[in-house]
């Protein structure tokens, strides 16, 4: 594609307020039309310069035309937000993000309190919970940027996805550390219990209590590990959804770049 036409396409891309991959697909469509137009004009006897000038003129979009094009793909929420002033819009976003964080924190806390997660918890289970809240918050914020605000750059698109992956890794590590911590706390009892089991003598009252406490420990550990695994699965799911979405966006963008460069 000719240098001038590429420049024009970049100019249109900068002006278009559309979400990906819609934007890349539209640019791909325009690039195709531009190129065919250029081929037809040059083959009909126009010089390269004249053809470029003609195409740049015909492919010029006014602000209202670009807005009309963007409006086709606006959701009802976006239409509503578009009516707010920029100052009010940014204030609304800040309040929205704080509210989202509070709701996510409240719901996660309530769920884990109900499952008596915090009753047997240690520092690692709190870190795991924090990781989950962070991942959900990042996920919701990313969705907002992708589908409502739509002002992202391809180069910075993956920044927060790394944070979600880190949260997942931290949760997995926490799950393992919780296990180690709990095993370490019960280890002396387990040793005594194993001696009791080996011993041919009948089980004493102290032995029965020991059995009970070991069973309780097992249940506590089960609750902690199951909840941490649920957290891990949720974070993996979030990462998977985000990664899949971003891959589609990147793919559309790469496709466009490859077509335009040829």
């Amino acid at each position: 594609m000719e240098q001038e036409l590429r420049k024009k396409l970049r100019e249109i891309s900068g002006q278009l307020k559309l979400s990906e991959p819609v934007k890349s697909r539209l640019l791909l469509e325009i690039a195709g039309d531009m190129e065919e137009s250029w081929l037809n004009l040059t083959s009909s006897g126009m010089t390269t310069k004249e053809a470029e000038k003609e195409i740049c003129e015909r492919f010029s979009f006014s602000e209202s035309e670009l807005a009309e094009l963007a409006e086709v793909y606006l959701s009802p929420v976006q239409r509503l937000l578009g009516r707010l002033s920029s100052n009010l819009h940014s204030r609304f976003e800040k309040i929205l993000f704080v509210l989202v964080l509070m709701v996510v924190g409240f719901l996660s806390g309530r769920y884990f309190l109900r499952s008596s997660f915090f009753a047997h918890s240690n520092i690692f289970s709190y870190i795991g919970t924090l990781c989950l809240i962070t991942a959900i918050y990042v996920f919701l914020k990313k969705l907002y940027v992708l589908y409502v605000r739509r002002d992202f750059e391809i180069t910075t698109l993956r920044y927060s996805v790394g944070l979600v992956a880190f949260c997942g890794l931290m949760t997995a590590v926490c799950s393992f550390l919780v296990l180690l911590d709990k095993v370490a706390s019960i280890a002396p009892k387990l040793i005594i219990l194993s001696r009791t089991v080996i011993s041919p003598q009948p089980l004493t009252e102290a032995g029965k209590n020991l059995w009970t406490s070991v069973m309780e420990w097992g249940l506590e550990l089960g609750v902690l590990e199951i909840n941490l695994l649920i957290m891990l699965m949720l974070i993996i799911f979030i990462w998977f959804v985000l990664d899949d979405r971003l891959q589609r966006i990147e793919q559309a963008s790469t496709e466009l770049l490859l077509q335009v460069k040829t």
Partner: protein
Amino acid sequence: MENKINVNDLARSCNEILVLALLSKGRLHGYQLALELEKRSGNYFRLTYGTIYPLMHKLEKQGYIKGEWEVEETQRKRKFYKLTSAGQKHLEKSKMEWLGFFEHLVAILGG
């Protein structure tokens, strides 16, 4: 009740029926559509791409036309549009509206 054209939105209605009428003859991509329109109208109608793309995408969203991507011989991907059955019905309705509009216009101008 008689279907009427919104006189405040004449240009848009006109562009819409032009695009639908051209697509009723066969599938076209944006450039072909602009070219065909000029050719068939003897350069009377000349739409800019700033008009064509929002219109095509709006019609596609409304379900009157359908866009399909295809790889051409040059290995370039092109989006071709074709009229849907809903688009065909809409075109017929629009034709009636425009004929009604001209009838009334001529009655005033000719009278």
